[in-house]
């Protein structure tokens, strides 16, 4: 399931979460204790030396500030609009989705290349380009293979001409090469799909910048960023509650944020223990805390996808479906369909059952005012009332599995 690996990836995605733990400006881990001189109580000079060193470290290496990602809540959406924050939140833990991109916010990069506003070398392709190219290559390969098979059929029927025989040989050779190329994993080699041609087309386009494109460029000739990153509700709450690495100006405290998230899923003002947000958040937190990269599974009709490390490294291995024990919200048609879709993309469907506490138990913790000075502790206590268990669901076809 591993994708084509790139040494660069390890460098770009160095941090698994948007947290930097005590590091100097070079990004090297620094153990303060080891570098400090020994302290001898009977020797005043060592005190001075120690203080100087301590001061030096404290001045030279400032504690990295983690709290510099600003999230705004607008029209029912959690947005990150700052460009460096957008990059940071994606590169450190793969949170959010660029609203004009597949996932990583690359709209600006792509548009710069499309409008030829920066000179790029050939290799600088965006992820979307690579995907498109790979797909084009595959269709091309399939077309050629089909043609070869047609010719082979003709040969068997003895209806083949010499010319076609020659063509067949050539096709065979090309296909072998293409197969090799795709195994090695180099992009753009082998097949007839070449980047050169693409660039020529680009240059033709460049001569006339379309009217709608010209609106994207400001008076200084720079491209205006119109993309923002949208965070899921669970992602926002995770970043605030579990990591505390974001600032949300709209909300005074965690409880307020929690209430808004819960009310997004249910109309009523009171929060029930089986509120869909709570269930979704618990499952999200559960898998995040076990080291998985959790992203929305809407494209396969499930609640979440689990990635090892992250989308650029591996394909998702598991699709999660949250099952509420109290309400029976899925019928067999839906389960069948989802299982078939998940199976067809070679992933495993996991049903995640969340056991909820009773409303009394829930309210007792939620409205307990003793813990007001530390909201985090209150939510910790609240979430500990829930239990999570997992079941793997597999579609099994008896007539295909029989030997």
């Amino acid at each position: 399931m591993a994708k084509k690996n790139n040494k660069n990836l390890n460098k770009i995605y160095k941090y698994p979460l948007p947290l930097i733990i005590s590091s100097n400006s070079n990004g090297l881990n620094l153990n303060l204790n080891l570098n400090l001189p020994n302290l001898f109580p009977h020797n005043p000079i060592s005190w001075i030396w120690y203080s100087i060193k301590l001061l030096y470290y404290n001045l030279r290496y400032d504690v990295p500030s983690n709290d510099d990602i600003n999230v705004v809540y607008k029209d029912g959406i959690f947005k990150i609009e700052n460009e460096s924050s957008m990059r940071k939140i994606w590169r450190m833990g793969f949170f959010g989705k660029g609203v004009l991109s597949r996932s990583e916010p690359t709209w600006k990069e792509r548009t710069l290349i499309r409008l030829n506003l920066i000179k790029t070398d050939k290799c600088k392709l965006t992820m979307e380009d690579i995907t498109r190219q790979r797909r084009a290559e595959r269709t091309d390969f399939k077309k050629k293979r089909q043609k070869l098979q047609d010719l082979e059929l003709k040969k068997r029927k003895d209806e083949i001409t010499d010319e076609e025989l020659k063509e067949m040989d050539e096709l065979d050779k090309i296909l072998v090469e293409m197969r090799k190329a795709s195994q090695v994993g180099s992009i753009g080699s082998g097949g007839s799909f070449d980047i050169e041609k693409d660039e020529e087309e680009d240059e033709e386009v460049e001569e006339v910048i379309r009217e709608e494109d010209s609106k994207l460029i400001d008076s200084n000739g720079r491209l205006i960023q119109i993309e923002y990153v949208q965070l899921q509700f669970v992602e926002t709450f995770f970043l605030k509650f579990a990591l505390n690495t974001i600032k949300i100006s709209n909300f005074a405290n965690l409880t307020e944020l929690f209430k808004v998230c819960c009310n997004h899923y249910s109309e009523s003002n009171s929060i029930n223990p089986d509120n869909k947000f709570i269930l979704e958040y618990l499952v999200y937190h559960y898998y995040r805390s076990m080291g998985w990269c959790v992203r929305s599974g809407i494209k396969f009709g499930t609640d979440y996808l689990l990635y090892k490390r992250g989308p650029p490294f591996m394909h998702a291995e598991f699709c999660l479906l949250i099952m509420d024990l109290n309400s029976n919200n899925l019928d067999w048609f839906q389960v069948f369909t989802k299982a078939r879709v998940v199976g067809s993309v070679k992933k495993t469907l996991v049903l995640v059952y969340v056991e909820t506490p009773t409303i009394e138990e829930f309210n007792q913790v939620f409205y307990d005012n003793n813990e007001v000075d530390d909201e985090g502790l209150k939510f910790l206590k609240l979430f500990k009332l829930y239990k999570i268990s997992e079941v793997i669901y597999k579609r099994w076809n008896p007539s295909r599995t029989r030997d």
Partner: protein
Amino acid sequence: MTTTNKVILPVINIDNDPEVLIFDLEVIKYLRIGLNVLGVLTGTLSTFPQQNLFLSVPLKLIIWEVIWLTENNKGILVDAKSYRNDKLKIGSVSKSKTTNNMVIIPSTDNNRNEELITKNQIDIKTFITKYLQNSNYTISKFINNYKYYKHLQNSGYFINPGIKFGGDLVIYPGDPLRYHSYSTIKFNFCDIDEIIVGGRLATSVKKNMILIGYEDENENDKRIDEIDDDVINDLYRNDKEPLTFSIEWSGFG
């Protein structure tokens, strides 16, 4: 009303979970060739008890097919058990041959007894009432679903149940033995989640997904235990055609 030109739809289990099971090969042939009604073969072949691709009699008719046949006066619901018992009483059933502990019955029933058919006829109202006792349909949903089926059946499609492909029905342009299906049908308009999975699944089996529904879903808040003439009239009434939308996924490499 004459019963002679109607096929017998034998109902078993009328009191609890009624089903229409057809053993008569001639009837099955007529339904399939003459009326485009497929049903589902459910019997296992005695020689190949493990395979499940080609099944044998009895043919089970799904509920929509039963209603459609009754509505169009093509079939008549008959209580299979009492009809047969009555026929045994008057001795019009030939003695079954028995060989090697197997009872061999003729594949078609040649001596219909119109009098007994009328006597053991089951009203469609009773059938639907009993059927709905075991389901969680609401009346209005039931009526709408039948109308979607009727719309497709009257358009000349061959229809199979569609759970295999995540829909409510699968439609074929001709007999499924000769044609591939290119559409799965999903009743009523559904949420985005179902559109995503439905569309993905349909595309991966080279079909498109068709959503079928009424713009204004007419509500009928009757309880399911009171199927009366109004409900049957609602079922049979030909009002406007349902809206259909087909969805195909693009962007698959």
